[in-house]
């Protein structure tokens, strides 16, 4: 791929302070992802995968290093600026769905557009719900939806602003096999339709294989980076 990087992480370190003392989560991550790529991030529990994703989303500030997303360096951006950026450029799908329980499916999907002040928020949200096959459930609350349906609503919400980047943290972790497959297929279909850059955290090796590239994280470092089976060089690290 010869496109310019859409995600660029340079020497990312993250240390968190807790009541039990400092915890080194990320220990020098260098990574670039080009526009339109699908990237699977794999690794054991506690390796720092989710934290890496939260840094890409601007939800976490690294202790050291630069985060450049869509050409914007996150360093120096305020929390509200990051929130706005996220709203317009990044969609996130969580393992636990994280739908707002007191809002209907339609309202949940419309949130990013409402926050952006879009007059057509609900019309656009309705179209997106239809794309994930849930137009008949638009007035239902999350407790009235199955796990798979909730995740499809979450997917619609993540993609309603047609973001440049889609981040998905174990999107099928709380779903059964068949349902999970449906969700993944929809994600890839939507990616294909919009050329969205997709970064996917997963324990499922077969899912990771579907991605253009697989990055392995172990103990806060990149332990492997394979593109179609071939290793990718990283500064100071061996694949």
């Amino acid at each position, binding site marked *: 791929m010869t496109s310019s990087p859409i995600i660029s992480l340079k020497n990312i370190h993250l240390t*968190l*302070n*807790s*009541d039990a003392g400092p915890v080194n989560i990320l220990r020098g991550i260098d990574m670039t992802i080009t526009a339109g790529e699908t990237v699977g991030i794999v690794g054991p529990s506690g390796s720092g995968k*989710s*934290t890496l*994703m*939260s840094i890409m*989303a601007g*939800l*976490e500030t690294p202790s050291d290093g630069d985060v450049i997303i869509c050409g*914007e360096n996150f360093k120096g*951006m305020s*929390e*509200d*600026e990051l*929130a*706005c*950026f*996220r*709203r*317009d450029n990044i969609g*996130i799908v*969580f393992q636990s769905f*994280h*739908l*707002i*329980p*007191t*809002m209907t499916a339609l*309202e949940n999907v419309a*949130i*990013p557009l*409402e*926050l*952006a*002040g879009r007059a057509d928020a609900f019309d656009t949200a309705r179209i997106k719900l239809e794309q994930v096959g849930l137009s008949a459930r638009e007035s239902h609350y999350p407790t009235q939806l199955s796990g798979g349906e909730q995740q499809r609503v979450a997917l619609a*919400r993540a993609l309603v602003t047609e973001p440049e980047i889609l981040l998905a*943290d174990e999107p099928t972790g709380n779903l059964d096999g068949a349902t999970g497959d449906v969700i993944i297929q929809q994600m890839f279909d939507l990616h294909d339709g919009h050329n969205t850059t997709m970064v996917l955290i997963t324990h499922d090796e077969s899912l990771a294989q579907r991605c253009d590239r697989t990055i392995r994280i172990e103990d806060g470092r990149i332990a492997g980076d394979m593109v179609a089976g071939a290793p990718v060089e990283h500064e100071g690290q061996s694949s």
Partner: protein
Amino acid sequence: MSAPKRESLGLAVRYAYRGMRGGLKGFRIFIACLILGVAAIAGVGTLSSSINEGLRANGQVILGGDIDVRLTARPASDSEYAWLASMGQISSVQVLRAMVHAPQTDQRLLSELKAVDDVYPLFGALTFNKVSGELSTAVYPALMRKNGVYGVLVEELLLNRLDVGVGAQLNIGQLSFEIRGVIKGEPDKASQGISLGPRVVISTEALDKTGLVQPGSLLKYHYRLKLKDGVRVEDFRLAADADQGDVGWRINDSSNGAPGIKHFVERVAMFLTLVGLTALVVGGVGVGNAVRAYLDGKLETIATLKCLGASSSFIFRIHFLQVIFLAFVGSLIGLGLGYGGAVVASQFLAQALPVPAVVSFQALPLMLAAAYGLLTATLFSVWPLASARETSAASLFRDFAGKKKWPRPFYVLLTIGTLITLMALAVLTADEAFFAAYFVVAASAVFIVLYVVGGLVQWLARNAPRSRFPVLRMALANLHRPGSATASVVLSMGLGLTLFVTVALIEGNLRAQVQDQLPEKAPAFFFIDIQNTQIDQFIETAEQVEGVSEVNYVPNLRGRIVKVNDIPAAEVQVASDVKWVLHGDRGLTYAKDIPVNATIVAGDWWPDDYTGPPLISLAEDAAIGMGIGVGDSMTINVMGREVTAKIANLRKVDWSSLAINFVIIFDQYTLAAAPHSNMATALAPDSSENELFRAITGKFPNVSVIRMKEALQTVSKILKQLSSAVTATASVTLISGILVLAGAFAAGHRKRVYDSVILKVLGATRRDIFKIFVLEYALLGLATSVIAAAAGWLGAYIVITKVLETKWLDLPWTIVGTIVISVGITILFGLFGSWKALGEKPAPILRAE
């Protein structure tokens, strides 16, 4: 990157509404706490404003005229009367205390005698039941002489006390009367002050013939005026100043027909409002807890919204709008309940009120109560809302949470600003700003102390040596574990209990003083209106009764302080506790020797043979309150003549001894020639009281006898009524504290269920878990009540010994009772909130986790 666009207020309102769709279960305590406090303040404010409005609207009826001109111990001169009559229609009323005698039963009684003319009443009507039982308002015809006998109208109490009926004979002074009616309603009763006996109404013509009107008799002459057209009250006052000067009369107008009652109502209302505000602030702790618990459950939603692009200020606005909406709803309900409560209370107070008990819509007190409610909700919710605003969206990706963040400086300032606004509103809207300020400062101090002490209790629990009894160890651990209810229970229940204990100890001390201590040293009787020609025979008669001792007498005149060091009395700066000295008439006396119960603290007593310029001895507390001392001067109007006297000495007076004491004592020379009567006291054992009473009243029908026991009972009754009102309002504070307690326990319910389940998995029986709960609640209740008892004791001690300057009486059972009740309530509510946890099966809970 350009500045992010702010989400609109309309969007925040929509999101606030959506957020409340999940139900308001967690806000029941929030709303209940606000309702209680707002209702108390609204109820007190509505009732007192309605009473005052009633007093204003009925001013003419209560006063008996547009204007009431009062002279003490002397009637208006011919020129003064003529001047008054030129200002409008005039009605003369004379008021004094006098003994009445029913020869039929040979019973005697002190009465409040009122003599009226044929014009009375100028406004309203005096209603009475005639012999036939028919209701009538024709007063003067009932009092006129018929078949050689004058008529008298009496209150039913007199008939009961003397055991006579309508138609019976009643002797007053030297004259016999016939009881011709029972008074049902007296329009101007409220303006007359405290009664020491039942009302008796006769004609002014009859009064002249009773022999009770003697030089120096304690008689008040009232001249009520219905001003003629075109003459306003202000015009009258100006004309009185210009044409008559200061002749020694006191002018009252219908805009303040019963100043004593108005002042009393305002004082009580102010105090009860402050107590209600304390209840609201206690409830604020519950508000804060409810908001905190609600936000804890919303953290995931907040983090999700932030992931989706919501700004932190948007998060704050959504939840603040929810809080304000609920506060508005709670306040509205509180206003309704307060108004309803005022209507109900007015029915119970109808007998005691001088005006019709009509509660009307009073906008200002209701608006004030609502403002207090909204401010309290804001004060206690800004901090948790601002903390929640800082929720990291990354918490959705992480299992452990970082340290809790402090709110931003803006929100800290907003909290402080709201607190200052609340305090300022309480002080500025109070009738007595200084008292309100003291109360607010004291309540704040107690609040801070209790907050610190709550933390101290947790520290002690955390650092207590590990007990070898697991139940005790776990109960103590529950006191200091994260999320425990200890701090808020100590704060809210503690404040309510402190107020309760303070009120109970003050009331108990005052009641003991009035009922037990004072009567021990008080004289059995006060005798007034003893003429100079009667004094020797009076003493002889009294001392002849077996057991009677210490018959003391003093000359008695009435006068009014008109100037202090040439400054008119109305302009003198005087401390609030001695304002009464400059207000209205004062009892005066003169003496050659220093009174027995007095100590000279400054200056010197005059010599035995003093005949120089007027000198006075002044009570020390009055001098301090007016900022004057030895060498300063006072001008006193005595029966129309102004006497300027120099202060020769200051005296320390023990008012609680109930011996004859005066604020002002003249030298033995200046007033000796002024017309006056005498006042006497006598000590008598209970067994001799009746005989002394009969001996004096039989021989001296003009002498009025005040039985100290009855007077103290009257005071005690008023004290009891006051105390009931204050205790009831203080109870609101306590109930508020209980609500917070219930809320705190309910908020911890889920955690408690989980804890119980895990304990069961590990082998604990339900009995073990029950013992842990009971011990935890008992320790919490004990800690709270001990702290409250100590704080309440200190507050009451300061009030009794330093403010009221009386002796302190220990009331241990009040303290013990408080502790027992507090522990009981804490255990009861704690178990009520935790009972279900005992019966929960482990499996479903563990699966859900």
